[in-house]
């Protein structure tokens, strides 16, 4: 238990450092955008006839720091706001907090990303075992090559191809948006059916884009485990095939959890492309649109939340690893 706590605290320290670096980058970028949007907003409000101190407060509500302060005071104001979970106000959707917008966008990213990851993980791991066992066969070769190819191709290429096939050439699925607007939101069959229809292509794209990586990783991991002495020993003890398979699979999946942590970060990057292609209102699309709309508070906030999500995913994956591997749990030499 001690080791887990130690690992956790290390992760938290590193995660905090990363979040701090990201916020500082966001701050410096917002401060240095050509034309100074903060100052611009302040002056625009004054031109519209607002009193200077009122305009100052209105701008500060947008960005989290006063337009007239020094760089350092602006920086500390900004950090202070973030510590109190104040991400500022959105410019492109007036009267709405950045946090609210992010909150409603998050569910459209998290569910498809998790669904796609789970699907590709199961598929890739199963086929990876097969590719490892039939290493010299033709099908094993084909699986390995298709794995490296899919692993190498960027998500947007897969997304565009999938869309071209299923919405233009053979239009069986809707092209964009999260749901048809004609249905009443709620727990009713047509609405849910529409949700599922719209989610199919994004989830498929997530799955296709990452499954090649799982095949390759699982294949090499299984090959390593098959060479381990304890597998031969188990075979010589006459263990049943099913038991033997479980021994191999569990030992081979273990190292994949470290990759899982990294891949979740990659998927959030991929979400930007996939949500843009499918016009899916998640965090990625929010980030792209905020840049297009010059809504810099929203941009900084979204960037921050994506970073936090990656830090959390990393920690979760590491804890999962500790639960599965008794060596880590006990703190022995792993």
């Amino acid at each position: 238990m001690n080791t887990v706590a130690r690992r956790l605290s290390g992760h938290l320290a590193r995660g905090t450092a990363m979040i701090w670096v990201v916020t500082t980058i966001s701050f410096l970028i917002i401060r240095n955008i050509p034309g100074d949007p903060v100052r611009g907003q302040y002056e625009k409000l004054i031109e519209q006839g607002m009193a200077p101190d009122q305009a100052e407060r209105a701008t500060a509500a947008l960005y989290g720091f006063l337009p007239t302060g020094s760089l350092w005071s602006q920086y500390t104001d900004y950090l202070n706001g973030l510590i109190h979970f104040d991400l500022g106000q959105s410019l492109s959707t007036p009267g709405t907090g950045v946090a609210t917008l992010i909150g409603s966008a998050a569910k459209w990213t998290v569910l498809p990303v998790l669904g796609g990851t789970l699907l590709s993980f199961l598929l890739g791991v199963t086929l990876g075992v097969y590719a490892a066992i039939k290493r010299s066969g033709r099908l094993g070769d084909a699986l390995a090559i298709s794995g490296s190819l899919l692993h190498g191709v960027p998500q947007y290429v897969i997304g565009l191809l999938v869309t071209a096939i299923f919405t233009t050439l053979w239009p069986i699925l809707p092209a964009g948006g999260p749901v048809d607007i004609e249905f009443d939101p709620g727990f009713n069959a047509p609405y849910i059916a529409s949700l599922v229809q719209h989610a199919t292509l994004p989830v498929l794209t997530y799955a296709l884009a990452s499954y090649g990586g799982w095949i390759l990783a699982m294949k090499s991991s299984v090959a390593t485990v098959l060479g381990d002495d304890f597998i031969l020993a188990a075979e010589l003890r006459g263990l049943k095939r099913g038991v033997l398979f479980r021994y191999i699979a569990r030992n081979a999946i273990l190292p994949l959890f470290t990759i899982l942590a990294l891949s979740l970060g990659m998927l959030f990057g991929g979400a930007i492309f996939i949500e843009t292609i499918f016009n899916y209102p998640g965090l990625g699309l929010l980030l792209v649109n905020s840049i297009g709309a010059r809504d810099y508070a929203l941009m900084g906030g979204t960037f921050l939340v994506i970073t936090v999500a990656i830090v959390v995913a990393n920690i979760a994956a590491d804890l999962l690893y500790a639960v599965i591997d008794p060596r880590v749990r006990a703190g022995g030499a792993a």
Partner: protein
Amino acid sequence: MTESFAPGVRVRDLTVVYKTPAGELPALAGVGLTLAPGTITGIVGESGSGKSTLALSLLNAVQPPGRIKEGSVEIDGLGDVVKLDGEDLRQVRGRKVGYVFQAAQNSLNPLKTVGKQLLDLGRSHDVADLQALVRDARELLGRMGLDGARVLDSHQHELSGGMRQRVGIMLALVLNAHLVVLDEPTTALDMITQATILRIVRDVHHERGLTTLIITHDMGVAAEVTDSLAVMYGGRVVEHGPTTEVLGAPQHPYTQGLIRAIPRLSGDIDEARALPGRPPTLGTMPREGCVFRERCPLRMDVCDTVDPAPVTRGERTVACHAVGHQVSPPRRKEYA
């Protein structure tokens, strides 16, 4: 289940080949060996002499790229295991023939406790009374000087090398297999533990009436526990007979060399003489003639062309042209 009968084992003309870029090379070339029921047989030889391959053959478990090319391994009650496959073979392994792996320190699944692996073993062989199995395992571990309950509750990384090796032996014995193969069971152990483990192996062997095969490269181990001893060189059994006779009056020049190479505690270190040259590897094995001739002090012309066939007289078998000439002229069968 507890019917006590020790099976005999007859290995005949066993040839095992390994696939290499240079073609299929023999690791065992026509090996013949008989294990008398109820005895402990030792196999000694240098690394690469084919000891482990022979041991694996008893379970028909030669690993690719190797394969059994011809020959048979008859075990009483099981028939020829070379012909077994699939489910039949699996049921033999573990249940009828216990096997202690060469690298027994690494023979456990790192993610499961010893107890869970014991239950996996029991369920794989349809043991009805799993509680009795656990009891037996605890008792065996206890006899080997371990805290059985604690060991069953442990993962591999919580056990020392010696403890893991003893767990490996326990797993080979706990299903009451009557033929037990131990491949270098005591390498990497200190002298005291080694002695303890050998004593237990011998005790269990006698109590349960087993047939036991011990592979080792340690002449001391062989001398201490075995009833009969086979010496392997270059994929062949060159000498086989009762241990006391083989060690006391070795006939094959290789056995003589091996024994001369052992330094004795009492006596002059200079008396120990290393065997000149190196053992052959798969690639350097001579294609014809005697495989030992390069290092042999008794080399004759015939050794270059004819591989000496094993000749059995009484309880002893030797494969050497020189021995045939010295001890008895050819064609004379009886020699008392």
